[in-house]
């Protein structure tokens, strides 16, 4: 029950709660001029839906205070005689102070403000329009509504499959070792390969049905389409599950207690998988040693493949390199653990 509950709850949570777009950012406004034009622009900014006014500041001193107490993301300052200066000199200035201790939010909010002020300016200059204009036409491929779930559904599948397969197998084998029941299995006439197959098959089935649950949820609740071939997608899921399982077996062959198995899975698998797989942070932006290192993370290759098949509708023709890498990784880990698997106890 828990096994199915967890991914469902997580997907729902992530799908709804984790967005990278920012809405209702709390801001303060310090309006030194309080005239018609500054009020109009304030109105424009607040009605955009991106910002919520928390307080109207009265003087410069209170800026620092409102940043430090933590809740304000931006302070917008209108200089004195804003409207008058625009009429007289043709230009007046606004200062936008951002709390850049969160650089991502600061950058995005700055972009919003630029856009809003730009529109406001265009309205002001309706009569004196720019004599020459380049109009960019935008097309957002594969995700024209710019939804974050498009990124999270493949990502959550990747992480859950890895965790369930790798962690569960490594721990269940380590458990047999710790409890001493491994001995019973070893003296039985079963061959090592049979023992391992028997151990992993239930997890293969479990992980596979989970993948399907997540896909169905993604499709019906979040409208994340499967644009490519479903068969291919399921095929890749199985490949990836087998890869995670062989990783799990490999881990269990080098540790001797459940505790170490769990610690390795958690620290060596979970965090790197979230952060170095391109699930949230694009790999191209990382410094080159990390880009290079990310190549040994199985999840990176699976994310490329699953995004390709689900969202870009591409096939094995383009993805042959990633497919090959996934298979090589399977061979590598299975080979290694067969070599390390001992029939005899020490």
């Amino acid at each position, binding site marked *: 029950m828990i096994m199915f509950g967890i991914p469902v709850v997580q997907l729902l949570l992530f799908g709804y709660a984790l967005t990278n777009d920012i809405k209702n950012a709390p801001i303060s406004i310090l309006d030194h001029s309080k005239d018609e034009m500054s009020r109009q622009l304030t109105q424009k900014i607040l009605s955009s839906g991106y910002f919520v006014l928390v307080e109207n500041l009265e003087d410069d001193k209170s800026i620092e205070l409102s940043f430090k107490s933590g809740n304000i993301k931006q302070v917008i300052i209108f200089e004195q005689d804003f409207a008058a200066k625009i009429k007289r000199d043709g230009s007046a200035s606004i200062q936008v102070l*951002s709390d850049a201790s969160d650089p991502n939010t600061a950058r995005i909010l700055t972009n919003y403000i630029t856009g809003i002020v730009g529109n406001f300016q265009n309205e002001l200059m309706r009569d004196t329009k720019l004599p020459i204009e380049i109009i960019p036409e935008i097309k957002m491929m594969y995700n024209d509504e710019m939804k974050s779930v498009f990124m999270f559904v493949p990502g959550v599948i990747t992480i859950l499959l890895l965790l369930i397969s790798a962690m569960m197998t490594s721990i269940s084998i380590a458990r047999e070792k710790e409890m001493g029941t491994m001995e019973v299995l070893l003296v039985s006439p079963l061959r090592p390969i049979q023992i391992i197959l028997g151990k992993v098959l239930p997890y293969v089935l479990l992980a596979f049905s989970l993948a399907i649950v997540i896909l169905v949820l993604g499709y019906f609740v979040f409208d994340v389409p499967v644009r490519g071939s479903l068969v291919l997608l399921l095929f890749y899921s199985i490949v990836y599950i087998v890869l995670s399982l062989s990783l799990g077996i490999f881990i269990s062959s080098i540790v001797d207690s459940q505790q170490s198995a769990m610690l390795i899975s958690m620290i060596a698998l979970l965090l790197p998988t979230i952060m170095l797989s391109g699930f949230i942070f694009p790999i191209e932006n990382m410094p080159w040693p990390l880009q290079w290192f990310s190549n040994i993370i199985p999840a990176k290759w699976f994310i490329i493949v699953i995004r390709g098949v689900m969202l870009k509708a591409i096939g094995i023709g383009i993805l042959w390199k990633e497919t090959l890498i996934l298979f090589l990784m399977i061979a590598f880990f299975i080979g290694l653990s067969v070599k390390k698997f001992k029939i005899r106890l020490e």
Partner: protein
Amino acid sequence: MRTILFILRKEFLQIFRNKTMLPMIFLLPVIQLLILANAATFEMKNIRTCIVDMDNSTASRELISKFKGSPFYTIVDYSFNYSDAEESIREGVSDLIIEIPTGFERDLHIDKTAQLGLVADAINSTTASLAYAYSSAIIKDYNLEIVTKVIGKEVKQPIDVRYSYWYNPELDYITYMVPGILVLLVSMIGIFLSSMNVVREKEIGTIEQLNVTPIKKYQFIAGKLLPFWIIAMFELAFGLVIAKMFFSIPIVGSLGLIFGIAAIYMVVVLSLGLIVSTISDTMQQSMFVSFFFMIIFILMSGLFTAIESMPLWAQKINIINPIAYFIKIIRMVMLKGSGFQDVLQPFLALVVYSIVALSFAVWRYRKVA
């Protein structure tokens, strides 16, 4: 008191005798901090761009050279055919196509308006919108440049917007991420050690031996909490040193405040771990439960995505998320130099939380098997 000391001694002996665990507890977080801090960036330094210039005129070449000159773009391909360019997005070779149609220059001079296409791979919507914002800024600059050339004098924008970025003027992500990752690692180590502890004794059977001793419930819990608390605080100190030395993260606020709050925060985390541990029967179970909560807590904590942009009900869930409180506090204190007054509210929340969690852990632990 003496009894607690004995339990402490036993726990430390167990921790330091475990030769696989020890390096993991101390080394892995360090490596992780070094690696992950560098990985967590949304900064687009490297928008892989494919250019389709069908016009091949002075204007189009000027515009392209603007993109080439920008540090944000890496031109990966020139193509004379739009569908080839789209193929390169499909294959994941490029992130952005800039398409300049035939007659771009002519339209610009004769019709006074010209169009061009920006096509972005929007699977990651954040990076796509950033790429779009950068590109339109470059195009706008170029636009103003031509206007200036045609009119012969500089065009003044009526509103001049000046930006300044406080606390992190270079918009450096590492500065932002390191305090958060530090919290994450300390919490993971803490929750892991404590949630596996009691249940391990149960599974091995040694809990019976402890149960028949005259140890009091609170002594037992204190003896179980303290060793991990010490390890976690030590790791926090260690991590802060690394943050300072390798990443030169500014520590604007008071170190004492950070440690004081961390001390309470760790009580919350460890008590939660112990609760999980006393409730579960097997290590597998306890691990699963703690994993479940950890992943939710981590992803909702504001470490990766801003809490403000979550829907209201999700922000409500964060009331029971200790990681969210501590990440908020440590960022405020380290980066902005906020004082005790500023973090009072999350601090009080943590205090209440620690009392509730600790008493629940003591109450839930039964000496009967």
